[in-house]
């Protein structure tokens, strides 16, 4: 599956609906579909917000390949590089403080790192390349 997405939140929303529609509920277990939609949303929203700094004229090139056990996803954009040329650590902030101090953001990279495997990032000639794998819940006995 290949898709080019405009760098604004409504285009990301409609791309997610297209992608989830194409994978279809008969092809993915509900838990795998949840993982896929969460990770894709967080990666693409980060590109819109940070790489393109909400400039709506950027492009995100998305590609996904499904195997029996995984979905491999890649994202290419022409926005700014990741800080320090590496993907953020995505540490979850403590929630045990007073309500006033609860975090309202910073969940995105935590979710990506928690749910995705084989995450690689490179910056090549003004472009960001991000690749990751989502492991599928395999039926018992399948490898």
């Amino acid at each position, binding site marked *: 599956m290949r898709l080019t997405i405009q760098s604004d939140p*409504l285009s990301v929303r409609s791309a997610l609906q297209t992608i989830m529609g194409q994978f279809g509920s008969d092809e993915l277990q509900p838990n795998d579909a949840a993982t896929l939609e969460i990770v894709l949303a967080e990666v693409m929203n980060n590109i819109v917000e940070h790489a393109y700094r909400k400039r709506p004229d950027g492009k995100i090139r998305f590609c996904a390949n499904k195997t029996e056990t995984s979905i491999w996803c890649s994202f290419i954009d022409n926005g700014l590089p990741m800080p320090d040329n590496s993907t953020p650590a995505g540490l979850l902030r403590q929630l045990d403080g007073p309500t006033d101090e609860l975090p309202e953001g910073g969940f995105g990279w935590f979710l990506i790192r928690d749910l995705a495997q084989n995450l690689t990032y490179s910056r090549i000639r003004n472009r960001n390349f991000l690749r990751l794998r989502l492991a599928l819940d395999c039926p018992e006995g399948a490898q």
Partner: protein
Amino acid sequence: MELLAEHLSDATLITVNENRIDAACAIAFKDRMRELTKEGPARIVVDMAQVNFVDSSGLGAIVAAMKALGDGQKMELAALSVTVDKVFRLTRMDTVFDIHHSAAIALNPEPQET
């Protein structure tokens, strides 16, 4: 962003008539919640039955709406989808909010057995 508020005797029921709370509507959600929770009973139950997706911006907006409540007000959530429930569990936000199976159960708990 369509949010409907129903003021019941001991709670406000807010029904989210949207399929998604995401980066495209997080600010609208936060603003509308703030308007709807300005007055009314202390207990606020948000019915999420129609919401099948919340991203990190949407989650942030839900937390912000809760933080904007007045003293003594409390926000609870009902009817989280598989995906929404997963986002809450992974980020541990399920420990911050009371989460009910449905709005009906939240508002009419089973009577205690005697």
